[in-house]
């Protein structure tokens, strides 16, 4: 329980486009924590695919992930891993 914050970088070629955005929201579907992304001073709800797309995070964008809730540690671990492996692309 608690609030976790971590910075990641978008590594995949086309940035956070439809496919990665779909993967992210599916990953967060059943999690209990609140999750948000902050990019260029804009903060959005990471469970919303439309909000992720409108972030327009291109390759190499820096994103701050904030997770708050009982499963925060697991959620953060999975999210960071997804960014790391470029969402399996």
């Amino acid at each position: 329980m608690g609030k976790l914050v971590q910075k990641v970088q978008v590594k995949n070629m086309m940035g956070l486009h439809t496919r990665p955005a779909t993967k992210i929201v599916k990953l967060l579907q059943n999690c209990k924590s609140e999750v948000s992304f902050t990019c260029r001073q804009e903060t959005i709800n990471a469970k919303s695919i439309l909000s992720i797309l409108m972030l327009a995070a291109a390759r190499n964008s820096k994103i701050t992930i904030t997770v708050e809730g009982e499963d925060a540690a697991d959620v953060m671990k999975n999210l960071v891993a997804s960014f790391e492996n470029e969402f399996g692309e």
Partner: protein
Amino acid sequence: MKTCKIEEIRLKGTPISRGVAIGTPFFITAQEDVIPEFTVGLEGVEEELLRYRRALGRSFEDVLKLQGMLEKEDFSDGISLLDAQLQMMRDPVMTTQIEAEIASSQKNAEAIFQKHIFRYQKSFQSLQDPFFRERFKDLQEVFKRIMSYLCAREGTSLAHIPSHAILIAHELGVTDIVEANMRGVIAILTKSGSHTSHAAIMAKAKGIPFVSNIDPEQLKSLMQHSDVIVDGRTGEVILNPGPDTLLKYRNIQKTVQLHSSSLKLLGGLKPETVDGYAVRLSANIAMPHEIDLVHQHHAYGVGLFRSEYLFSSRETCPLEEEQFSVYQAMALKMKELPLVIRVFDLGGDKNFLGYTGEVEQNPSLGCRSIRFLLKEREIFKAQLRAILRASVYGNISILLPLISSLTELLEAKALINEMKKELSQNQIPFSNQVRVGCMIEVPAAALIADLLAQECDFFSIGTNDLTQYTLAVDRNNQAVSFLHTPTHPSVIRLLKLITKEAHNYGIPVSICGEIAADPRFTPLLLGLGIHELSVSACHIPAVKNVIRRMNFAEAKRLTQYVLTLKTSEEVLAALSHQYLKIVPDDCLYNCEVTRS
């Protein structure tokens, strides 16, 4: 008083997929109609929220069902696009905002929903990056579907289409065709849509009559009663048909049915002429699952796998691993039958991945196909490596599209060798039997066929592009499409030249263009010395049928005669005449034949 007589009207469009249908039209309107906005009051809010959730739920089910259909077709990119649509429908931010505003404004759900979609549209449009701006398109699909349920109003999505309807729209995508087929659509009419679009290929494969270049508004304004006849053979659309015309077309439908059921009996029989000349009859495919059809029709192999379609709706370039696993699975599924993989034929009229940015003034003469691949070498190399690695699992050949000079062929071959070397160094196995073929679809290539034949293992003639480039005609341009005639003596002479040089240098030559699938051309093509015909699986029975009924010696005589003819019309007449003699009962191609 005299009643106004209902007049039969014939509209002429561009025929895309053959077949005849009689039915009631169903219009999909492109522009959004004005959505009514009214206040429901506090007591109406609950009902509006319920309506919104119901529309969401039904749309969700629709897309799930559609996904199931695509899964059967192995169309993974379509599935992931729909996946995104599902996530948009359950987007918590959108739903919360819309529901909150319905409650606070006490207005009807569709008005609020539309308002929010407009807001999203504005936000997306304000994005700097054009690639992300474009993502609004996906949301628009979702919007249309939900709205059509919300308004219980027909005509914004395929959700309400009755079965046995003729679908009329401005433009259709691939998933639309799958959904149309799922919902029992009997014919398709569109304003725009080209022969080479994925939608067109899908409609042909499903045997749905399809005519493009038909203006929906014009059609609507001229229609006086509900029956419409679509003649996918000629591109004619008949409105307000009289009893005689209806009877005539019902007879045609019967004859078509009889003929196609007789073709089913051909099953495992060999494609061999009456006098014993055996032909290789292969399949053109765009999706891996179509290999089932190859076995079903006892085809010789896959003469053309259009690899670019696999990734056509993708946003990013597929990596080597992903391609490898697709090609490997295909090779295994082919069970040692030949599989010819044409490397990405991109550009021209096929937009691809992120490479849609630069608008070329003249795309068919631009950086497409092999030119694109030789420029974007990393993409080309990844594909070549994936193909080579898969080659140990079956009988794979590589086909290079749009070759127009020996230099290009040699450059591509050098790259293939470089990749082989790389793989050997890393001790990754590949087959040494991979043959490299050249597509002959540019007159320049045809004229140097002798030079190319010495440097490759086989020719595959793409007659669609060869005709377009020889005659300088864009067949998707309605003003000149009538000039796109593969029966033009110039095209026939080029075919003769190509086959002659292939024979001289002892390499096989196949045809994978549309004329290979048109049974009227079969005697001429065999007479010219073509070894192999590669056609969409659905056309195999008709072509096999004419092969089994014709005489090779006679075909050679016909060919000699055709080579003396002076115009496209004369050639077409000669081919049609001969076909009518060989297969008198096929009224899909003999337009005059009906069984009374």
